[in-house]
């Protein structure tokens, strides 16, 4: 058990960049990020025993983390909706996409829920089929949502330095 815990802590430490990036992508406040980090660690620990290494560790971490966040977001739907709309509006009116990271920040602030998860996994290099398996969606649904999001982002960012090309 102690050995298993040590392995688990090492895996969390090695992949904390993924977990913290996802926390930050969905929650703006430090306390909220801390809370969701704890929830993710807990869910990872619960499923650690059944992880058989059939997929990459990072894939398992993305899957568990995003599903934990999406479940939490669904529970707090009202709070998140009002906060994220406010943040997105603020960032569009005051920030300029000076570089790719700034543009990425704006895109992440603008997107919500499952759409954001799909875009993150797409940016990580996963194929539509893999994304669908990780988020429990159909591949067609992922493809449709991704096309819609790209169109939406192109329209939203058309006056900015960058343009997002449709597929």
């Amino acid at each position, binding site marked *: 058990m102690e050995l298993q*815990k040590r392995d*688990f*802590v090492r895996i*969390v*430490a090695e992949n*904390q*960049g*993924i977990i*913290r*990036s996802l926390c*930050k992508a969905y929650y703006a406040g430090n306390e909220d990020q801390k809370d969701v980090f*704890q929830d993710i*660690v*807990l869910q990872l*620990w*619960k499923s650690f025993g059944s992880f058989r290494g059939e997929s990459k560790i990072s894939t398992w971490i993305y899957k568990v983390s995003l599903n934990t966040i999406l479940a939490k977001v669904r529970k707090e739907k009202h709070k998140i909706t009002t906060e994220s709309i406010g943040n997105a509006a603020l960032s569009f009116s005051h920030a300029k996409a000076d*570089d*790719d*990271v700034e*543009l*990425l*920040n704006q*895109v992440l602030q603008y997107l919500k829920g499952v759409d954001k998860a799909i*875009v*993150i996994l*797409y*940016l*990580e*290099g996963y194929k539509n089929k893999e994304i669908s398996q990780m988020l429990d969606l159909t591949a067609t649904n992922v493809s449709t949502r991704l096309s819609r999001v*790209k169109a939406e*982002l192109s329209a939203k960012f058309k006056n900015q330095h*960058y*343009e*997002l*090309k449709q*597929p």
Partner: protein
Amino acid sequence: MNLSNLKPAWRQYRLVNSMQSVDQAEVLSILDRAEEIAVSTAHSYLINAAMFMVLTIFCQGG
């Protein structure tokens, strides 16, 4: 530019967020707390089940 052009930015975003070192004690405390909650939940179930049995046995209407 297409959405794929943001892939390096995502890698950079992830790298920046991995610089904050994880506190091993924090992770272990999360796991310990989860174990405590699981034990206390099991304990509550046991007490409730025992009370239900007592009430069922002794409080039957005649």
